[in-house]
């Protein structure tokens, strides 16, 4: 074996590119990012940034995995043509870290294709080295040989795509190490002994056989001990091992001179082949031989060194011109030798199949719960089939099944929705696709596709739900998939794998959070973002009929939240205007929105109230604004009745800055009002009508007064227990049951006014709300839904009259929750009832958290980001600068995984420095990490003791302090000594190198000290 060469892989000299799987994942990731920005899904953005950060860390880890690996390569022994030539590669991590999934590849010298430079080299030999332990590992690479010569290999490449297979790091070097390949002896004459003539006197022999005298030199052999005088120093120097001179003793076996000139005339290659056979034969029979070729003479010797030299000489003998090879080489093994299967093609073991099935089920679960069970059914079936296949160890279906199953599923969805486009059918299709991919999951390379499908499943679940719980679920599921990928590339013990996982994820979390702060938010969506199907969210509806508002009283769902910028308005001003109804059919009120009329004229008076509004969900067309509203957002518009709407196709920003004029008057001119609608009445309710008709002779304002009085005289009861509605709801309320909720009152009052000839309409919306003292904002819930009346008086315009406030002033003064308490079921025990205020406070806290989440995370928080950056002194930053900031963060974040290593190195350097410093009596400037930990332990212990009244005088020396403590705290002596003595010893004792003490050990000691002191104090107080 010849001398080899050694190379060391460095961090800088290692190249890296994304693998195919990496490119796939990166494009899917980009899609995820763009979708999150476009649809304003803050949670998805956070998830995408987390995944991106993990990707970055993975990149660094991939390079780090190879950096610091030392490679030593040696060429193998000479081989006959046709046999594979071998190179020995020794991998050794210089820093003691295990290297994972290292792959060695050796290229051939002969380029494949039109250009060696631009085409991928054909890797003639690939060996998966697997994990390289700290002790190193040795591998052999083989290349096929065809003819005689020096077999030179192409470059050697060392690569790895650990940990997640997203990137491949590599380094390659040209190998200047050729293996001698000698020609094979001609067929038929290769049997040993044939070439050796039987007698030395054989005249026909072309070999000159010497008969040496006794004591003649016959060759070299490896020197033994006690034969220093026999060592041939010159030969030893050449062979680099000690060789002793061998002399013939006793009977002298013949020695052999193998000469080129002695061979029968033949083509040179044939001659060389024959000479090779002679050499092998002589070597086999241990006969000393010399080799004489034109231009080269090898002296008489025997043994391995001689054989090596002879074969090398034969192999490197120049080829005759125009004659490539006279010897027909045996059919070269064309198939690559020892070409291992690529990891991506190997089948998944059952444990991983199970893991991934569970992962994908978890990823799809939120979406499946949002869809109807019909749409989820195919997914459930596919999941069951997959589970059954795993359970009974059956292979994944292939072939025709993979064509039929998707068609079946698509057909099923089409029959459900009658379309395949749109949000819900799309989601259902995605779900089915994920199920199908899971079903055909067999190989490692499928995992990356499955992984991206998992992301999209999570993404689509977020359109309807961005709660922290779902965000947590996202993190769990994506964390599991990362772990799943790690399972593929590190089939190790779970503990090791878990360590690798932590190394990937822990640095990624702070990076992702920072990126989330800096990442630019778009001012408007990249493409149309219409909510094509308005989901019924259970709020106020487009109509009002008896019971439609009182049933909302039972709902504690938040409708919206409002922050007042100035002083808080009075409760009587908190009317949040929603749909206005003008058409009445005797039972149901509905709006006339089709009329092309101009928006109302508002005469603004009084002091305005500024506030911001945060709707809980942005899928209603209404914005419930305080009366009377003024806004500047182009996404909003006001309808004819003064209600505020979101423009179709637009999505309002998260926090709406609005202004209200509580004292404004609407439509004071009669020309602005269409009395046909506001005086329209259906048949029925004869008693109420008759009563109202009697007021027609009064002035309009007196009619309103009369209606108020009538309502008061009816002694109505405000309750949720409204009896079943009969034919004439107004008569029934005023004269029979006398029980109703606000919609009944508003309905009846409007009826009375209209019947009396006063234009009137019903306004629905919310009244009041609950002030959350924790965040100082107003929560308006569905239970605050309310209905009131507007009457038009000449000169006054539309005037708000709340018949509920007439009947039950507490409804406005205290809010719906207090004035109309929900009946508490009798089975609830007393202590729970007593604890209700506590629960209420917890609920308020939860609401605050939910509000903050909605604002800062789920709602992307573009405004909050601007505010934060301005508070940090950045001012308004253009997107370009933000992107640059992100890039900078990414670069810094990539340094994070490298940080511990660097820190350890500088720590070692500092330690050396301090040692030298101590020797010279110079005060130590820096302390090592271990020393700092000891110092912290000492100071924290003193702090703890000071808390227990055992503080240390500032000039008290350590030993004196410990002695005093021992006397003063007899109960805690053990803990004190266990804490203090090692500290003192470590600080002052010589020859104790910074002891390798786990940081946890310090913590344990401190904890024990704290406990002992606590016990002592408790005992003292007792």
């Amino acid at each position, binding site marked *: 074996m010849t001398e080899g060469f050694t190379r060391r892989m460095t961090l800088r000299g290692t190249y890296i590119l994304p693998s195919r799987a990496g490119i796939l994942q990166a494009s899917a990731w980009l899609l995820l990012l763009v979708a999150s920005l476009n649809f304003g899904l803050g949670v998805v953005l956070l998830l995408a940034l987390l995944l991106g950060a993990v990707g970055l860390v993975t990149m660094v880890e991939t390079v780090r995995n190879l950096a610091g690996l030392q490679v030593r390569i040696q060429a193998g022994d000479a081989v006959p043509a046709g046999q594979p030539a071998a190179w020995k590669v020794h991998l050794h991590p210089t820093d003691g870290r295990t290297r994972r999934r290292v792959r060695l590849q050796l290229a051939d010298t002969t380029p494949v294709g039109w250009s060696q430079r631009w085409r991928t080299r054909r890797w003639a030999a690939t060996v998966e080295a697997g994990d390289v332990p700290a002790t190193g590992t040795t591998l052999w690479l083989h290349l096929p040989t065809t003819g005689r010569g020096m077999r030179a290999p192409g470059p050697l490449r060392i690569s790895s795509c650990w940990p997640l297979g997203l990137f491949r790091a590599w380094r390659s070097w040209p190998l200047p190490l050729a293996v001698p390949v000698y020609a094979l002896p001609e067929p038929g004459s290769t049997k040993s002994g044939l070439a050796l003539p039987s007698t030395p006197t054989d005249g026909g022999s072309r070999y000159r056989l010497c008969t040496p005298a006794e004591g003649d030199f016959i060759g070299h052999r490896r020197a033994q001990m006690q034969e220093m005088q026999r060592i041939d120093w010159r030969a030893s120097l050449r062979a680099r091992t000690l060789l002793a001179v061998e002399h013939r003793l006793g009977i002298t076996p013949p020695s052999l001179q193998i000469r080129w000139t002695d061979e029968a005339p033949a083509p040179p290659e044939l001659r060389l082949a024959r000479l090779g056979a002679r050499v092998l034969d002589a070597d086999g029979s241990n006969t000393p031989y010399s080799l004489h070729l034109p231009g080269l003479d090898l002296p008489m010797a025997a043994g391995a060194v001689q054989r090596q030299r002879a074969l090398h000489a034969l192999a490197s003998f120049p080829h005759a011109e125009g004659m490539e090879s006279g010897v027909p080489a045996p059919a070269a093994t064309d198939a690559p030798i020892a070409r291992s299967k690529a990891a991506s093609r190997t089948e998944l073991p059952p444990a991983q199949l199970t893991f991934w099935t569970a992962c994908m089920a978890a990823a799809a679960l939120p979406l499946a719960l949002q869809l109807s069970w019909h749409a989820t059914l195919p997914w459930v079936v596919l999941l069951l089939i997959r589970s059954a296949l795993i359970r009974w160890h059956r292979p994944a279906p292939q072939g025709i099944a993979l064509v039929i199953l998707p068609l079946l599923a698509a057909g099923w969805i089409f029959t459900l929705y009658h379309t395949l486009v749109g949000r819900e059918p799309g989601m259902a299709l995605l779900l089915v696709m994920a199920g199908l991919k899971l079903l055909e999951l067999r190989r490692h390379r499928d995992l990356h596709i499955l992984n991206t499908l998992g992301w999209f499943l999570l993404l689509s679940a977020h359109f309807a739900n961005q709660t922290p719980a779902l965000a947590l679920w996202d993190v769990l599921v994506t964390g599991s998939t990362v772990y799943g990928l790690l399972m593929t590339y590190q089939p190790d013990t779970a503990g090791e794998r878990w360590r690798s996982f932590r190394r990937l994820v822990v640095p990624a979390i702070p990076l992702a959070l920072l990126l989330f702060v800096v990442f630019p938010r778009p001012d408007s969506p990249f493409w149309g973002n219409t909510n094509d199907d308005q989901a019924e969210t259970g709020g106020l509806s487009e109509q009002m009929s008896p019971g439609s508002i009182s049933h909302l009283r039972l709902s504690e769902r938040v409708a919206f939240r409002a922050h007042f910028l100035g002083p808080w308005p009075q409760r009587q001003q908190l009317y949040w205007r929603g749909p206005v109804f003008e058409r009445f059919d005797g039972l149901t009120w509905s709006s006339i929105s089709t009329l092309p009329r101009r928006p109302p004229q508002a005469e603004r008076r009084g002091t305005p109230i500024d506030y911001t509004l945060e709707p809980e969900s942005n899928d209603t067309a209404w914005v419930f604004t305080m009366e009377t509203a003024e806004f500047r957002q182009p996404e909003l518009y006001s309808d004819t009745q003064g209600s505020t709407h979101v423009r179709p196709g637009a999505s309002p920003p998260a926090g709406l800055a609005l202004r209200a004029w509580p004292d404004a008057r609407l439509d004071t001119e009669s020309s602005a009002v269409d009395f046909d609608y506001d005086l329209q009445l259906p048949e029925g309710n004869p008693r109420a009508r008759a009563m109202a008709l009697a007021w027609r002779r009064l002035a309009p304002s007196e009619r309103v007064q009369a209606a108020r009085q009538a309502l008061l005289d009816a002694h109505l009861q405000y309750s949720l227990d409204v009896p079943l509605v009969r034919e004439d709801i107004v008569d029934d309320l005023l004269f029979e049951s006398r029980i109703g909720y606000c919609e009944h009152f508003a309905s009846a009052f409007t009826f009375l006014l209209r019947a009396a000839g006063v234009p009137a309409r019903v306004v629905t919306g919310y009244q009041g709300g609950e002030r959350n003292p924790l965040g100082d904002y107003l929560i308006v819930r569905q239970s605050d839904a309310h209905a009131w009346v507007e009457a038009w008086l000449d000169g006054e315009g539309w005037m708000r009259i709340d018949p509920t406030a007439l009947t039950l002033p507490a409804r406005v003064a205290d809010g719906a929750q207090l004035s109309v308490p929900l009946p508490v079921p009798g089975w609830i025990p007393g202590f729970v009832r007593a604890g209700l205020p506590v629960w209420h406070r917890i609920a308020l806290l939860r609401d605050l958290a939910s509000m903050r989440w909605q604002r800062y995370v789920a709602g992307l928080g573009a405004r909050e980001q601007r505010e934060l950056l301005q508070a940090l002194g950045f001012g308004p930053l253009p997107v370009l600068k933000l992107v640059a900031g992100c890039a900078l963060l990414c670069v810094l974040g990539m340094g994070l995984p490298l940080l511990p290593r660097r820190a350890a190195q500088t720590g070692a350097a500092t330690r050396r420095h*301090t040692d030298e*410093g*101590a020797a010279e*009596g110079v*005060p*130590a400037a820096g302390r090592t990490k271990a020393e700092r930990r000891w110092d912290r332990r000492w100071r924290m212990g003193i702090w703890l003791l000071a808390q227990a009244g055992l503080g240390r005088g*500032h*000039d*008290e*020396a*350590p*030993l*004196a302090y410990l002695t005093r403590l021992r006397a003063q705290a007899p109960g805690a002596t053990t803990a004190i000594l266990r804490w203090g003595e090692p500290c*003192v010893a470590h*600080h*002052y*004792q*010589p*020859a104790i190198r910074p002891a390798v003490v786990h940081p946890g050990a310090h913590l344990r000691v401190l904890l024990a000290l704290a406990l002992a002191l606590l016990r002592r104090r408790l005992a003292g107080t007792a």
Partner: protein
Amino acid sequence: MAPDVALNPLHAAPALILERVGQVIFGKPHQIRLALACILAGGHLLIEDQPGVGKSTLAHALAQVLGLPARRVQFTSDLLPGDLIGGMLPDTLHGGLKFHPGPLFTPVLLADEINRASPRTQSALLEAMEDGRVSVDGVAHPLPRPFFVLATQNPSHQTGTFALPESQLDRFLMRIELGYPDASAERALLLGDDRRERLHRLHAAIDTEGLLELQQRVAQIHAAPRVIDYLQALLQASRVPGAFAGRLSPRAGLGWLQGARAWALLDGRTFVLPDDLQAVLPAVTAHRLDPASPASEAPRLAARLQQAVSAP
């Protein structure tokens, strides 16, 4: 005086010395310990107190227990440098002048009532104490090794005393005060044998080689960077303008560290703690911080310096 030195292993020697000196000087273990630390650190010791409290006895006892030949010189106002160093006298045998060493040429010099001598005589001691040699007519005569000066002095306000110059004081590593014995110690003193008798009965606890070896060991005691930091901070604190009448010299710092090392050795440790620095602080620093102050002021001065710096 049976030499039982060989029976005592070296590490037990300090304890033995302390015990034996304690047989003569009652109730003053701390002072004895300080004196021994001073000797082990290779420094000279100044014992200051009223007459009759046992200063000379302590010096004698130390010399005797250390197994070193000692000479006593009673300093008086008419003592001349030549009386101490010796001088060139005619050589009757070979003719010419020959140096006749004075009483200074002894391992242990008991300089009794050193402040009664004139400043001229006091300064004659300077070179001897600092360099361990004496120059007469340009020829240096080395003093024996080890060489200690155990000086006693009366408080300076007594009549007929010359205050030691600052340079002289700085050459004494430590100044200690014995003080009157407490009641029980005094009773034991009164009831016991004659002091001189007991002094004669004292056996050496160590020989010269042993003492030199112990001094070697003191030099090898480890002082951690933290200790050096603390010492430096203390030295700096003494040099703050206006804080003290005198300032601690680098020589004082060196001696202090050495004294702390010796103290650590007496405690059976192989490394210095801040405790050691504090233990020798009054003895090492007081006569330097305020040369004019009596030894009874030492604790107050020491406390001021110690409190100026936070312990590590």
